[in-house]
Each structure stands twice: as C-alpha cells, then as structure tokens.
C-alpha cells in the first residue's frame, strides 16, 4: 500500500494526473515523490505537496483536503485509490478500470467520460458527474458511479453506457441527451431530467416535473430493476424491500429524440 498525506495545501489549482495506481505500481517511494504535478503553470514534484510512504503497489491511500487537487486517477487502468478527504475536479475522469473511493466530497466532472471501473463518493458530487465535456459526443461509457450525497447539474449527461446511482438529490438536466445507460436517483430528481434522451433509463423515487415530451405508458414491475437494486445493495446502498417488489410508473421519451428512453417513477400506491 502507498500512502500520500497532503503536507502543503496548494494555494493554486494542482493538476495531479500522475496520481494513478497503475503509474505507481512499478515505482519506488523516491520515484513516486519525483513524479511531476502542475501547480498553477509550473511543474513541481509530487513530494513537494505530499508525504509519500511506500512504493510498488497499486493500492493508494490519500489523506487530506484535496479539493484543490484536480485530475486524481484520470485515465487509470487498474488499482484502487482511497481518499480520506475531499477530491478536486475531474476525479477519475476517463478512467478505464479500477476503483476510487472518496470519504468526502468530489468536485465537478467526477467520472466524466469514464469507460470502466467504479467510483464511490461518500459525500456530495459536483456538476457533470459521469457526464461529457463540452463538445464531446458522449459522456461515461461503461463503469459505475455511486454517490451517497447529492449531485449537481447535468449528472450523466450524454451517457453512453454504465450505471450512476445517487442517494440524495440531483440538479437540473440529469441524464440530458443520454444515449444509453442507467441513472438512479433516490432523492429528488431535478427539472428537465432526460431532456433529449435517445435510449437509457432514469429511475426516480420522488415524482419529478417531467418535460412535455415524455408520455405516460403504464404501471408495471420492471424485473431487471430488481437486479440493479440488488447490485446496489451489495455495494452498500440500503435498498428498501418494497422498491424491489413495488410497481413503477413508466414514462417514455424524449419524443424530440429517438423516444426509446424511459423514466421510471416509483409508485408508492
């Protein structure tokens, strides 16, 4: 295991895309401390900001308030990062495999355009969670994101595949322009959810305000949702029994796009 403890809080944005378990796996403690990080517009050594303990491992533990530290674990291909504190922007963006666990909040664009692996955020997430960068054709494409707190606007926008589950509330335009994939929101689902969605599934447990281009289909018990909820339970989400066995109102849309997307709203009655 490698431990990185923040010793100097950066006063400018610190871009630390070298903090990746797959980069650390073959390196010694001294080599890791020399890896470059971008502080403002100057490259510094990782060791200038972090006390590094251990080497040659793909299990990373980060300690401290890393809200100013951007790009942790971006593009990582294997290994595990555990963060005891907050994480900055672009956490695990574009990651391909492996796992990131944050015992704190994550900044905007966490898991943006990821194509595999798992991110578990125990606090709140920012905007663009699992979403797409401006001008991109798609957001996350495979993988799983779990958030115990709330998430911001455009959660899972332009998602291609994968699963995003948020225990708290999400902001506006959740699942906007989704191509496929699943977004489950246990708190309140913000306005304009699923705007422009082609396919894919959004599951809500409180009645959201739906766009005029979503139509009510039926009330039924989607079988596959039980499997997804069971997966979430195994991941530590508390799932009530009636969510598994209960009925859901199905709305289809967005009729302005392909119209094959679906929004399930849990039917309490």
């Amino acid at each position, binding site marked *: 295991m490698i431990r990185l403890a923040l010793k100097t809080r950066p006063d*400018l944005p610190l871009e630390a895309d070298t903090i990746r378990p797959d980069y650390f796996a073959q390196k010694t403690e001294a080599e890791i401390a020399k890896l470059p990080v971008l502080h403002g517009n100057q490259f510094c050594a990782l060791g200038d900001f972090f006390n590094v303990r251990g080497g040659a491992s793909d299990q990373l533990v980060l300690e401290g308030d890393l809200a100013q530290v951007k790009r942790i674990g971006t593009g990582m291909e294997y290994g595990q990062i555990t963060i005891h504190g907050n994480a900055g922007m672009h956490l695990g963006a574009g990651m391909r495999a492996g796992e990131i666990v944050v015992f704190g909040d994550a900044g*905007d664009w966490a898991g943006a355009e990821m194509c595999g692996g798992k991110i578990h955020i125990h606090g709140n997430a920012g905007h663009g969670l699992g979403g797409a*960068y401006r001008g991109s054709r798609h957001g996350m494409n495979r993988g799983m994101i779990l958030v115990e707190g709330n998430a911001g606007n455009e959660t899972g926008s332009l998602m291609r595949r994968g699963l995003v589950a948020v225990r708290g509330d999400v902001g506006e*335009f959740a699942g906007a322009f989704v191509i496929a994939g699943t977004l489950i929101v246990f708190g309140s689902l913000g306005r*304009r959810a699923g705007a422009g969605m082609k396919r894919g599934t959004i599951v809500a447990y409180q009645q959201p305000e739906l766009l*005029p*281009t979503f*139509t009510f289909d039926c009330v039924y018990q989607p079988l596959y949702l039980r499997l997804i909820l069971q997966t979430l339970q195994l991941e530590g989400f508390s799932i009530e029994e009636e969510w598994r066995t209960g009925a859901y109102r199905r709305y289809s849309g967005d*009729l*302005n796009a392909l119209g094959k997307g679906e929004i399930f709203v849990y039917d309490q009655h």
Partner: protein
Amino acid sequence: MQIEAAICAFCGCLCDDIVLTIESDRIVQAKNACALGKAWYTAHSRPPDLPAARVDGKSVEVEEAIEAAAILLTKARYPILYGLSSTSCEAQRHAVALAEALGGCIDCCTSVCHGPSGMAVQGFGEPTCTLGEVKNRADLVIYWGSNPAESHPRHMSRYAVTSKGRLTPNGRKNRTVVLVDVRSTPSSRFADLLLTVRPGIDFEILWALRALVLGRKVEPAGLAETGITLAQLTHLAELMKNCRYGVLFAGQGLTQSAGNQMNLSAAILLVRDLNQFTKFAIIPMRGHGNVTGVDQVLTWQTGYPFGVNFSRGYPRFNPGEFTMVDVLRRKEADAVLSVASDPAASLPAEAVQRLTEVPLIAIDTHESETTRLARVSFMASTVGIRASGTAYRMDNVPLFLKQALTSIYPSDEEILGRLLERVRELKA
C-alpha cells in the same frame, strides 16, 4: 470636417452609416446614431483628462507602467486575462499571445453573456445567416429574451423589422414579428405576437415547440408552469413552419436564465428542425461592440471561443473551470489583467472580492471601478473614435473601424503589444 460612413462600435449592431461632424478635435454630431451611439461618441470624444498610466495611483510614464505590469504578470502562476469585448481584433490577438506567453487563462465577456451560446454551438452547430440576409429575405422575425428597442435601438430599423430589402420591399408590412419575453418591454409595441412567459421556463417552451414543429405529441401538463397554452404554442409553431425565411434572435434572457446553454441548445435544435420545412436561422443578440470579434480571434488562435487555459503550454477549454467568475470565486487567480472591460462593477461580489486581493492591471478607455481598483492602470484610445481596428458585427461580419480623432493615449493594441514584448523578454 465630416466623416461619412463611420462605424459606431458601441453595440453588436456596428451601424456603418454614421455621419460624424468634427470640430476642433471633438465630435459635435453623430448623425444617424441612436441614443446609445450618440452618448458613446460624446463620452469618448471628451478631451483626455487622466494620466496615460498609473502605478499605485501615481502618474507614471507608460514605459514604467508596462515594466510594472510585466513583472506582476510574470510572477503570477495562475494569471487570468479578461474582457476584450470593446477593443479591436488586433488587440485581442496580442492578448491571446500574452496569455500563452504567461501560461495563464484567457476569458472574455462572452463567458458572462453569450458563453452558453458558444457551448450550444459546439454541441449542435449554428444554423445562422447574416443581418443582410435578414434585411433582404426574412418575413418572420422572433426576438426571444431580448429587448432590442433598448439594448440595440437600430436593430429593428436597420436589419430586422422595418428595413426594406430585395424580397421585403414593403419593410414592416412584409414581416411578422414575434416577441417572447417575461414582461412587457418597449420592444413589445413592435410585435405582432407577444408571448409573455414565466421566468426560467424557456427550455420547456422551446422543447414543446420542437415537438409541435415535428408533429410529435406534447403533454399539456408539462406546459402548466410556463404561462402559455398549447394553443398559443401551436399557433407559433405553424407561423414558424409556414414562413418563407425565419430568424430567431436569441437574447440574454435565454443564455442567462435557468438552463443556460441548454436553452440555446434547444433553440438551435428547433431552428435545425425548422429547416426541414422552410429556411430558418438563429443569431445571438451580442451586446458589446466587438464581443463577437473576441470569440472569433480566440477560436482562430486557440480553437475555443472563451474560457481558455494555457497552464500546460497548449490551449484547453472548459467553461466552469477556466472562466473568469469561477477562477475568481474559487480564489485561484493570482493576478488579473482586465482589458476594455469593467469586471469590478459587473461581476458577482464573491468574484470582485478576489480582484481586491490580487495584483490587478487594467487597460481601459475611461476611469472605471476596475481602473480605480487596479495597481497598474493604463488609459487607452477608443477603437472607432481615437484608434483604428477590426471589429465583428453580431452576425460575424468583420468591419474596419477608422480613427476619427487624434489621441494622446496609446491604443489597446499598442499597450498589449509592448506588454507582450516585455513579458517575453522577462520569461526568456
């Protein structure tokens, strides 16, 4: 002395039919200009009464101020350049080079006005046209979230409503004008159809309009909060589909209300859909004289229209991360250069707070909140009055602005050019 066909660079209309009368190096009359244009010419033709450069409030030689500014900027590790909407493309080009040399961020007023339009265009393209086409062809004009009578007073008479063109020989009689806004404004009286909508629900309306245009089902319940009925929207959708040449002018009511870039995305998608039935175009109602130009120059030089970062030596774009308000609000910027803009008076208080904490350098044509707050400030000559340069009209047509009066101040282009030269020397 008279100057014919001068160009007023106050707003994005860039009216090029102004006749200036000049007496003893002052503009005494600006014929054809609107009230805003006249005020602009009057204010900027006053004799200069401030020192050309100040450092810590003391008057100094321009060269000394350049040196002070260059040192402050090169010491910074996350500087941001901002503004540039009321200056020439030549000056903007130097600003981009300066941001690159400094390894900092560069952002323009676009990020607090029509930045969402830029983001929407990146996602969905821009089915647009020039104002000349509007004048000659458009028979349906829609202003959405805009009050041109007060913000762009000659927009309707020169280009969009009463102007007579080749296929619109009777001007106003050949056109149907629709206004969508949250309240009645001085522009309302020019409208044939006025839709008063509730604030913050433009996305729902545009989205429902798309569905109606495409002949899809619309759930009336989804319109309950919008303030307008399905019948009203159906009427508008029919107007749009049956016109010969329609234009949607998108104002800041769309870009700066809930939904932001998604509102513009919806508007662009609506216009795209309408082109299955007729010819339709969208033009953002750009505010400042050359704010369109700064998007053009930044895109030409970096590939992105605003919110660009050079920390890694190459341009990166991410609105929300590298944009002025966000960089200041998160207390990331450690030096700010403001050009032809007044961020201290126009940005949110949280962002302005950061301006008071870091070295601030201001270049402007007049005294402002920002120049008063700045550690180093320069007075520059106004482009279009006391300096020449290129500007882009709101429809992306470039026009060359000629100097009308002499100036004791250097131009933005000259100041930024010298600053760039000095920064490059210090960095070397």
